[in-house]
């Protein structure tokens, strides 16, 4: 079990490094020694050592999980030179939503999924519960899936500071800003934020419930994620770094599935409505600074909330049909 705990440390280092990096670039453009990147790389290297051990002597991972993690590492390593070329062509990108950055996210998702799969098979004799490492891996996957939203969540507070003349960004960042309402939010339309959140949280919840047959794991994973984000926010605030809105209302999506004990369209609808309306209320009544939001976005968010569990049911049905066609 120590092997998988070391993976948790590796992903935690990546989590810390990436959150630090996202916050860093709302204050500074370039960094001399890229300390957030070094922390991130330490997590990457620790994982690399753990993976290398498995290639030498297969002990804790099955062959396919090991290969999945290797695919994640390979893809991440491909992303680095592509990102470099992208920067030569277009300059440094002030957004988490750039195409080459998505290679990193997808690669890390595959790594986490591979380790989680390995852990699931390694502990096949136990029933998955939230008190196990499943919650940690669900949290890491959630963090990685939602990472692009850091642009909107950091951007919301940075934009508010900017328009009120209280920006803490460095001069070189402020000199680059010509269209703050677009640039600070990474240049993507505002409706992407709630829709993307519902899609990713819904997807993770439904898939986790389907594989682990436990409704508490995605819920506790989201609780852990939100708690760590609050800890991070407190640290960043203490050292005068840009802070972010913590997306605490995402918890309502896995909570709806947990309370209904079903992965059906109704749970998806209730979860997405509760998520959006609570976020909208926070935004509208000025309780906290949130990414910009308009009420009509409720419709696509709710639709995505319904479609995720519906597609899950259809896929399950098709798999069952295929299985029944096999000769006895």
């Amino acid at each position: 079990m120590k092997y998988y705990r070391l993976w948790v440390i590796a992903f935690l280092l990546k989590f810390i490094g990436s959150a630090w990096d996202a916050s860093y670039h709302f204050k500074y453009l370039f960094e001399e020694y890229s300390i957030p990147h070094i922390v991130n790389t330490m997590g990457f290297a620790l994982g690399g050592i753990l993976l290398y051990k498995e290639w030498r002597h297969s002990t804790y991972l099955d062959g396919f999980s090991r290969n999945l993690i290797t695919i994640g590492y390979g893809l991440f390593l491909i992303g680095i030179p592509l990102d470099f070329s992208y920067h030569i062509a277009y300059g440094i990108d002030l957004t988490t939503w750039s195409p080459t950055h998505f290679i990193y996210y997808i690669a890390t998702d595959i790594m986490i999924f591979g380790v989680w799969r390995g852990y699931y098979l390694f502990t096949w004799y136990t029933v998955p519960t939230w008190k196990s490492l499943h919650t940690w891996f669900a949290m890491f996957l959630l963090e990685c899936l939602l990472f692009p939203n850091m642009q909107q969540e950091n951007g919301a507070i940075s934009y508010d500071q900017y328009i009120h003349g209280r920006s803490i960004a460095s001069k070189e960042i402020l000199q680059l800003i010509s269209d703050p309402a677009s640039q600070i939010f990474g240049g993507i339309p505002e409706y992407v934020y709630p829709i993307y959140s519902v899609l990713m949280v819904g997807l993770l919840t439904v898939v986790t419930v389907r594989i682990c047959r436990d409704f508490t794991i995605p819920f506790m994973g989201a609780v852990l994620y939100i708690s760590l984000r609050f800890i991070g926010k407190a640290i960043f605030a203490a050292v005068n770094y840009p802070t972010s809105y913590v997306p605490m209302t995402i918890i309502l999506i896995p909570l709806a599935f947990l309370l209904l004990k079903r992965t059906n369209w109704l749970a998806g609808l209730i979860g997405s409505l509760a998520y959006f309306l609570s976020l909208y209320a926070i935004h509208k009544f000025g309780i906290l600074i949130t990414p910009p939001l308009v009420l009509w976005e409720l419709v696509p968010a709710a639709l995505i909330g319904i479609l995720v569990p519906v597609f899950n049911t259809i896929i399950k049905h098709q798999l069952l049909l295929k299985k029944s066609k096999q000769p006895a």
Partner: protein
Amino acid sequence: MIPLYLFHVTAVEHSESMLWTFLTCNVFVVSTGIVFIYKLFTQKKVRIAGIVFGVALAINYILIAIFGDPFDLLG
């Protein structure tokens, strides 16, 4: 500024020859990477594909360290 949402970046001057050198290397890295990933996914023997991919990566990374900065290799 490039007027596309996903390409929201800070415009800078760049050398076309350096860009094309790196893009050529990128094509090599991506092609060998696809073969390596495919073999991993289908659980075939990956030794040769892995070595070729590693060589492609090494060339590209050395060029980044020379023309860019070793810290660019941290992603």
